[in-house]
């Protein structure tokens, strides 16, 4: 059974205070690792796809990295609009298996 664990559950940051979110996974036959952002009551918004260990992707203040056992989402100099729940998911066959998410709150 695929397992995805995200930590911490919640993160409170001051504007400009950089931090990292962790996603550790146990799967058989990883086809891809995905990061999504979700605002309250909305559907997940796609951020990144990573396919192999050592791969990195960047978008504005976000950077995602992947190793054989875990992925990190780095938030550099966050702004209040970065407040959201960040979800990590792994793909084995066709389905996505999600972690419970990390809720990030950025205070001005």
């Amino acid at each position: 059974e695929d397992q995805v664990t995200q930590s911490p559950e919640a993160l409170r940051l001051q504007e400009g205070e950089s931090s990292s979110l962790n996603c550790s996974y146990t799967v058989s036959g990883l086809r891809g690792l995905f990061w999504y952002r979700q605002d309250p009551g909305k559907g997940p918004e796609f951020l990144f796809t990573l396919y192999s260990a050592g791969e990195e992707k960047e978008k504005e203040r976000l950077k995602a990295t992947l190793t054989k056992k875990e992925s990190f989402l780095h938030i550099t100099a966050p702004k209040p609009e970065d407040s959201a729940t960040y979800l990590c998911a792994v793909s084995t066959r066709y389905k996505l298996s999600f972690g419970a998410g990390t809720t990030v709150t950025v205070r001005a």
Partner: protein
Amino acid sequence: DAGVTQSPTHLIKTRGQQVTLRCSPKSGHDTVSWYQQALGQGPQFIFQYYEEEERQRGNFPDRFSGHQFPNYSSELNVNALLLGDSALYLCASSLDGGAGDTQYFGPGTRLTVL
């Protein structure tokens, strides 16, 4: 470019009733997946449709069924509703190229079962 659309936005049903949720995929996509998201949890995979067939199914009872139409749109049907079926139901679409394709999500349908 239209993204994934879902209808209705919200729905209130009573126990034992049946419900149908609808999804139109992103333009150019041919694969639709359905997920259930309970409050405070990550989405849980229900099933995926490709070429009008159910290709993979998660750990959900037979009360959950679906359909994909020739235009790639999809329906999720839930029979004999239980209180525990209250959740945000998410549809995601992708362009089939094999496992590992990026899935793009719609805004969801909030189902409340009383």
